[in-house]
């Protein structure tokens, strides 16, 4: 593992948008269960 929990805490403070442009806090995504975040290059 080459990233720290502290970095995940910082990540959790950021937001992403859903298809309705609604801002979702990243931390809310993994608070209930183990979560795989897949960052894709683009929607191409």
């Amino acid at each position, binding site marked *: *593992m*080459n*990233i*720290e*929990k502290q*970095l*995940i*805490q*910082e*990540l*959790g403070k*950021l*937001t*992403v*948008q*859903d*298809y*309705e*442009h609604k801002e*979702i806090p*990243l*931390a809310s*995504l*993994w*608070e*209930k*269960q*183990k*979560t*795989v*975040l*897949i*960052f*894709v*290059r*683009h*929607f*191409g």
Partner: protein
Amino acid sequence: MICRRQVVDIQSQMDTFKKMNVRIVVIGNGSPNFIEGFRNDTGYTGDLFTDPSLKSYQLLNFRNSVTSLLGFKTIKSALHAISTGYLQKGIQGDALQQGGVVVIDSDGEPVYFYADSEAGNHASLNEIIQACT
């Protein structure tokens, strides 16, 4: 082509992740207006969001440069994607931005991290599944 192929592969294992009680979240970086089209193209049924600000990509130090688009693996992956029917339609997002995978447990602990080194270079699905067990 390359990105969609990766998501189609993930979709093929959605039952496996569900059995493990693991949530799958795909994050892109184009406009939210392209989310539904991407879902239709890939058949992906999981959570789908976008970060047009690229802040999360930058925080995780995912590469963003022209050199990351070049390389043998890119050509090989592109040929594979074309041969399996996943042609890139047009770029919706930052064309130079690379992606990656982070697996986080419910305590906020990172248990797996992979930064793509170039286009077409992705975390192996087996490695992701291993990280979830």
